[in-house]
């Protein structure tokens, strides 16, 4: 190893406290609604109250005359801009792709769809005026549940006869032939209900058109400010220099804030340009319930073929995926379901067919997990069915089918978007650790003794893989400042993932800098030209490696310069503790701050006094005068991977069910996960456990039901319950680390890991707890009344 590669600091892997905390803890966060330029006006929307209707009249007369109103816009008032919003990721399997208009004109497709925009002096007045808008509807039957969507003559879109947006399919081997001959086959009808990301900060957009600069400034609570910027340029016909989009502090996203585009993200900038005044719209919680994207709704007819030993021979699923009224994300969610179904198991014959259906509900786009929880739920339910049939423990069936550690890279054989190829993993190791923490044998004994006391305990498990890092790339711009700090600008925005800290750890190592000298900034399109956003567990993988790439390029520039200064070979330089020194002669060295001062001969007073030896430094100054080098050092780094990388994990839980009231208490939860190299264990822990608790809420509390007319039944936190601290179980978290060979840092994504298998785990655990009643859990989330109903149907009396 050359000295150049010897990095002594080693920030990666440390539980470095977060750099972003101080401000946030003092109330100094800067979220969109905290920003209020002078003369800001406020928008409110009139949203459809009907799920499926023709609009026969829109009367904005009274609203326009209401106190404090500055502008009222209907779809016809905004001309060409009222065209279908972009479709992300076209795909041949899309048959009839529909995206939303910024403002509905003569047809509405879900309760909550924006119809009229009202802009007034403050939000109170805007809401007053919005209440005066009259919309006449000619209501149609609503398409609500999936079976109805598939069979009914009622249409969500007039020109889509069967409500089918697309059909996605993939296959490996010849499952149909295997099913014909298989010894055993189990079939299950499985379904998951809708829920949503539900970040604590709602969406929000502020836009300000500066007529002197001819620049549009936008602050958007989005996961993808740079992508929003490029989209806005196109939609508003502005050049790249004319649009700046900043995602300031963002109070959570979980997928709900990466839509590209929500109507409001186009309309607010448009209104600001039209009025020549800043316009702000802050989504309220009711609006979030009816107009932010949702996810999860799927119904599967799944089958598994297996032999006497529990070896899985083939898996087949035919499922319908609820995309809501539009399909802004193309096939992303059902495609993930298909590609994640087989997970950690070696299955040679598999087919999946997804029919994507329109319904009169808010549009669907990825929510944390994005199709993967569905896959794991289906696969693990099937495994349970196998175990039941053969009288085996489910974990035994799992163990017998795991992909062995020597099989990587492992080609699954699926090719929807790109070949699915697991880069690395050690699934046995994960399972082994999980079983140690779970202690199934000990649990069975406890279960028996508790049952004698009339208590119902159960154990469940679930394995998953997590593809991460959807492309194409992320970018980073790095430079050494006058003060000797190193600033890294990335395009991705953080919604709490702590990028400023973990990316700084990567950069500090790559630069041999003290972490205090590293500043990472994200979420500002003005600082880095190209990049995409934070989603799909991709930021650390792509942006993190882009930071490392930029850091390395910057270090190479510095090495070239310093080697001239110190008259040595660049390979002999050691970067450590924010200094560069000659290997073997540590006394000959210069600090990063010193380098900045030397290179910029103009001699600004150095902002931060450098700690170089004055005499040595004076000598270096003389030499520096003779070197012709640019006065500043900066480098860009881009990173993309040709394929996704695959994290993995095993979750297991022990629950207690009270069959009298259908309550489920999670007593213990075990997670073992592998996200490759862990850059910051505390941040990873936060991501994984945050996901877990979201997943538990998703399994036991949260759902977004609709009545037959398509009216949403959960539009407040009174009806949509998220986990509170009181139901957090005892948690054991453990790791397996298999580096990804596909990126220099060896990392894999981890943003979604916590949530993916939770529904599967809880379903199995509850079913196990209630085994005396011989019930099968086929539907998630699991509400208390559903549990008592299942028990009542089983006709075994509760004792």
């Amino acid at each position: 190893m050359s000295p150049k590669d010897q990095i002594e600091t080693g920030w990666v892997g440390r539980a470095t406290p977060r750099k972003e905390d101080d401000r946030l803890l003092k109330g100094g966060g800067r979220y969109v609604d905290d920003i209020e330029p002078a003369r800001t006006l406020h928008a409110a929307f009139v949203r459809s109250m009907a799920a499926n209707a023709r609009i026969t009249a829109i009367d904005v007369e009274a609203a326009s005359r209401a106190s404090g109103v500055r502008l009222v816009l209907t779809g016809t008032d905004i001309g060409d801009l009222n065209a279908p919003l972009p479709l992300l990721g076209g795909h041949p399997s899309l048959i009839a792709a529909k995206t939303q208009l910024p403002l509905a004109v003569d047809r509405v497709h879900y309760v909550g769809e924006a119809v009229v925009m009202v802009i007034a002096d403050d939000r109170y007045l805007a809401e007053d005026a919005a209440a005066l808008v009259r919309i006449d509807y000619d209501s149609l039957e609503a398409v609500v549940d999936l079976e109805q969507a598939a069979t009914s003559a009622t249409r969500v879109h007039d020109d889509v006869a069967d409500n089918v947006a697309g059909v996605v399919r993939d296959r490996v081997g010849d499952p149909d032939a295997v099913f014909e001959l298989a010894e055993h086959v189990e079939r299950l009808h499985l379904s998951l209900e809708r829920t949503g990301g539900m970040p604590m900060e709602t969406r929000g957009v502020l836009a300000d058109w500066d007529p002197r600069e001819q620049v549009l400034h936008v602050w958007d609570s989005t996961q993808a400010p740079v992508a929003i910027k490029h989209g806005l340029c196109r939609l508003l016909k502005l050049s790249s220099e004319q649009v700046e989009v900043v995602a300031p502090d963002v109070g959570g996203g979980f997928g709900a804030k990466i839509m590209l585009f929500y109507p409001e993200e186009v309309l607010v900038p448009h209104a600001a340009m039209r009025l020549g005044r800043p316009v702000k719209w802050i989504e309220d919680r009711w609006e979030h319930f009816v107009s932010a994207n949702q996810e999860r709704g799927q119904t599967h007819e799944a089958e598994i073929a297996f032999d006497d030993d529990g070896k899985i021979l083939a898996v087949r699923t035919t499922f319908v995926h609820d995309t809501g009224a539009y399909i802004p994300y193309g096939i992303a969610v059902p495609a993930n379901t298909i590609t994640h179904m087989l997970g950690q198991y070696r299955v040679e014959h598999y087919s999946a067919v997804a029919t994507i259906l329109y319904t009169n509900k808010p549009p669907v786009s990825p929510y944390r997990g994005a199709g993967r929880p569905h896959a794991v739920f289906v696969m693990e339910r099937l495994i349970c069915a196998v175990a039941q049939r053969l009288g085996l423990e489910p974990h035994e069936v799992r163990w017998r089918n795991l992909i062995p550690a020597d099989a990587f890279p492992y080609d699954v054989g699926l090719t929807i978007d790109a070949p699915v190829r697991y880069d690395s993993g050690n699934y046995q190791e994960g399972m082994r650790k999980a079983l140690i923490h779970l202690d199934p044998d000990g649990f069975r004994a406890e279960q028996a003794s508790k049952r004698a006391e009339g208590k119902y305990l159960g154990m469940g498990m679930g394995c998953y893989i997590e593809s991460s890092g959807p492309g194409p790339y992320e970018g980073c711009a790095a430079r050494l400042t006058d003060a000797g700090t190193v600033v890294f600008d990335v395009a991705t925005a953080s919604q709490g993932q702590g990028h400023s800290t973990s990316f700084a750890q990567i950069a500090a190592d790559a630069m041999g800098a003290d972490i205090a000298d590293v500043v990472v900034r994200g979420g500002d399109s003005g600082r880095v030209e190209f990049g995409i956003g934070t989603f799909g567990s991709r930021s650390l993988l792509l942006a993190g490696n882009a930071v490392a790439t930029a850091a390395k390029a910057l270090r190479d520039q510095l090495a070239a310069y310093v080697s001239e200064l110190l008259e040595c070979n660049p390979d002999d330089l050691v970067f450590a503790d924010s200094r560069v020194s000659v290997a073997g002669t540590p006394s000959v060295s210069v600090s990063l701050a010193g380098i900045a001062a030397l290179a910029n001969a103009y001699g600004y007073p150095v902002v931060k006094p450098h700690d170089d030896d004055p005499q040595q430094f004076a000598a270096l100054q003389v030499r520096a005068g003779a070197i012709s080098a640019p006065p500043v050092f900066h480098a860009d780094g881009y990173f993309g991977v040709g394929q996704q990388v695959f994290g993995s994990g095993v979750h297991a839980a022990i629950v207690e069910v009270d069959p009298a009231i259908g309550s489920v208490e999670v007593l213990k939860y075990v997670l073992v996960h592998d996200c490759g190299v862990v850059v910051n264990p505390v941040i990873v822990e936060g991501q994984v456990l945050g996901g877990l608790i979201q997943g538990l809420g998703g399994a036991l509390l949260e759902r977004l039901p609709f009545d037959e007319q398509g009216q949403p039944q959960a539009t407040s936190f009174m009806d949509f319950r998220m986990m509170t601290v009181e139901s957090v179980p005892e948690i054991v978290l453990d790791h397996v680390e298999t580096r990804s060979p596909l990126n220099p840092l060896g990392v894999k994504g981890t943003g979604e890991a916590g949530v993916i298998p939770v529904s599967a785990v809880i379903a199995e655990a509850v079913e196990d707890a209630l085994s005396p009643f011989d019930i099968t859990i086929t539907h998630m989330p699991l509400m208390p009344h559903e549990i008592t109903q299942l028990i009542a149907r089983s006709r075994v009396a509760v004792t």
Partner: protein
Amino acid sequence: MSSETAVSVRCTVNGEVVQRIVEARMLLSDFLRHELGLTGTHVGCEHGVCGACTVIVDGSSIRACLMFAAQVDDAEIETIESLAKDGALSPLQQAFHDQHGLQCGFCTPGILMSMTACLREPAPDREKLLETLGGHICRCTGYVGIKRAVDQVLDGADSVDRSTVEGAS
């Protein structure tokens, strides 16, 4: 006594006396954020459930989204901006930092205010603090770091058991 839509309010906010004429319907959360510029108080639901807007009024933690500014006439209000003294984090804030008790930080100010009020009560214990915390929703952290912060603030930093996080040392 006559009714009016505009009301004069004089109150103490973080030790400073403020006086404003407000519309009767202005929510306390909007008053703090938009009239006084104290944007550390967040708004997550405007129906009392999420807890993001929690501030201390006359010593008690309450939802600022369920009070009208008109109602705090003569009251003493404390917001998140008052917790750090001379830039130094309070022990509670420090515990949140040390134990990774926040991610996006949106829920954090409300939680800190509820817990600050609870810690001032006689004999605050773990149970009381966790129950108080139950009145808040955090969508990011899964509460694990927050629970450790509770332990730290009660028992000191050294006593916090991080053994749930095996392999993450």
